[in-house]
């Protein structure tokens, strides 16, 4: 295998969970809700996916379970912040705390067991194409889901009426409510979608990336996903670019080491975060860009008054 393709494949696997979780959070934030519990929902998806895969013997059922658990767990956040109007930041942080603990409790019996791995795609004739075959047609199913999800969310947000409504809620829930839109219902949908995505991302960890269950295996990827959403200024395709840049920096650094080029990994690792801040500043300097991209009512609770 050509080394460039090999590197690309490794980057894709590393970037996919970040991309999926970030795409989910993007929809949540576009609706004006900030859910800092991504890490918690992700780890719940990881343990649920592994457990269901292991117990049923089917990695596909594991995948479904990961999505379901992520969605279910986010429902807790939705009830708290949307129905009870609690503070989103504090509730999201509590959700992460709860998820890390709860997943550890659920997963005690799964430690040290080899799990199911989702099989890679194989299309006769295509997968074996020279150079591009393996990258385009020979990866795990979640890779394709992640691309489809990006395209789907981009289409939904910018090409459908419901997407427009969702964005308008994120920009001004007050006006949206005045127009007769059910703000809370939309936000419920968005939060649950975000939870399902985070769960799927966790499932990728325990069913593809490293098919096993160990505590804390998400290792901070949920937080990176949060950063990615901002880095991408709430644009789906930019999230994809951002996730692959994150992955490329990390994998490139490993390759540099293996070639014998010393690099201080911390400095390289901090670049994406600094880049995110620069991007934020650039988009906020331009009033028009800000208006177009930043959900103005992000993080503010909404209670319909009547």
């Amino acid at each position, binding site marked *: 295998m050509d080394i460039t393709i090999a590197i690309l494949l490794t980057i894709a696997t590393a970037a996919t969970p970040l991309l999926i979780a970030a795409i989910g959070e993007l929809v949540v934030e576009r609706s004006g809700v900030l859910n800092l519990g991504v890490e918690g929902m992700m780890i719940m998806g990881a343990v649920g996916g592994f457990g269901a895969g292991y117990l049923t013997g089917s990695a596909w059922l594991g995948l479904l379970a990961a999505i379901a658990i992520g969605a279910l767990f986010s429902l807790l956040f939705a009830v708290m912040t949307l129905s009870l109007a*609690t503070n989103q930041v504090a509730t999201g942080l509590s959700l992460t705390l*709860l998820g890390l*603990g*709860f997943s550890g409790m659920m997963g005690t019996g799964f430690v040290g067991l080899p799990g199911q791995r989702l099989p890679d795609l194989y299309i006769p004739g295509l997968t074996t194409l020279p150079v591009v075959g393996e990258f385009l047609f020979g990866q795990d199913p979640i890779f394709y889901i992640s691309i489809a999800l990006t395209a789907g969310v981009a289409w939904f947000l910018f090409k459908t*009426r419901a997407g427009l409504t969702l964005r308008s809620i994120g920009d001004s829930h007050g006006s949206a409510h005045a127009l007769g839109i059910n703000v809370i219902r939309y936000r419920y949908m*968005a939060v649950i979608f975000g939870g399902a995505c985070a769960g799927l991302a966790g499932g990728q960890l325990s069913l593809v990336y490293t098919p096993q269950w160990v505590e804390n295996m998400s290792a901070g990827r949920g937080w990176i996903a949060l950063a990615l959403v901002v880095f991408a200024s709430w644009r789906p395709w930019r999230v994809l670019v951002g996730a692959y840049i994150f992955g490329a920096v990390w994998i490139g650094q490993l390759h540099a080491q293996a070639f014998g080029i010393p690099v201080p990994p*911390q400095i390289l690792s901090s670049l994406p975060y600094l880049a995110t801040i620069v991007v*934020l*500043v650039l988009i906020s300097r331009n009033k028009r860009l800000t208006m177009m991209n*930043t959900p103005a009512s992000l993080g503010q609770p909404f209670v319909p008054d009547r």
Partner: protein
Amino acid sequence: MRLELIKRPQRSALFSILSPFIAFVLTLVAGSIMFALLGVNPVSALHAYFVEPLSQVWQLHELAIKAAPLILIAVGLSVCYRANIWNIGAEGQFIMGGIVGSILPVTYPEFQNAFVLPLMLLMGMVGGAAYAAIPAFLKARFNTNEILTSLMLVYVAQLLLDWIVRGPWRDPKGFNFPQTVQFSDAATLPELWPQSGRANWGFVFALVAAVLVWLMMSRMLKGFEVRVLGSSPRAGRFAGFSVGRMVFFAFMLSGALAGLAGISEVSGAINQLLPSISPGYGFTAIIVAFLGRLNPLGIVAAGLVLGLTYLGGESAQAALGLSDKVARVFQGMLLFFVLGCDTLIHYRIRLVGMTTPKLEPASKLEEVH
């Protein structure tokens, strides 16, 4: 059926007092069910959680150690949040306080006299405040969302600490282990009553900060300014208050307090820099700030309660073999109940029958799944 919130004309005094108790009882009930399901006697579990840590002097000291950074950071954050400024990067400011405050004991370890400790504390505050000034500047100058910039800067600070401890500041005699030299006695925050436990001056700083900020918020013009700008920036502007200056004030005050917490932790409890100096104090403090309802005195109580759940979790683990995962779940439950019950202060909750739902927009959202 669904929940409907109806805003009370003013906050309910009754539920202000009652809500923490309701939350606590709910936590006890839910916790008991969980413990019973895990095959542990709920009574002994709750005893280990809430009684045992409070029944021994040394544990009270430990509680003070654990609660001090939480209170110190949360008090600062409460000013920010009251002003409607969302600093969630206290973890980064805590770390920067630890790093900047450690410049003296790490690079000039032979400099040992009565000035070194006050200087360290001052530098820690300056470090935290300066780091907090970055998102404040970006917010004031470019109107950049401070939630996100302050969060990004947390990661940068963590990586900076990691690099500095593994690289330039690594103890030359430390067998390549990632740690700096140990601080001299002159650079160590003294303990309060060494005979009975390890609690250090950090806890006193936390209490003093809480009282001072409480006085500021309730008795001084500055506090009035914070509240006015927080609830209505327009009204604030008419009163002649500057939003931009408030952003700097709130960020730098909370940054300085987080920085002080950082250097107090490094100097008092750890005594050297390690690649990680905080088990997430900066984030936990956000929860503490809300548990304490953004009131500095309430925050003292909230910090102690949260600290107690850490200690209780350990005591349950040691005495009953309940794993630390259970402790975290229990903590999470407590937080959810407290946050949920506080809704009762501002809202009445009514259950209403479902009107015929319009599912049209919702189904469109689902197409994307």
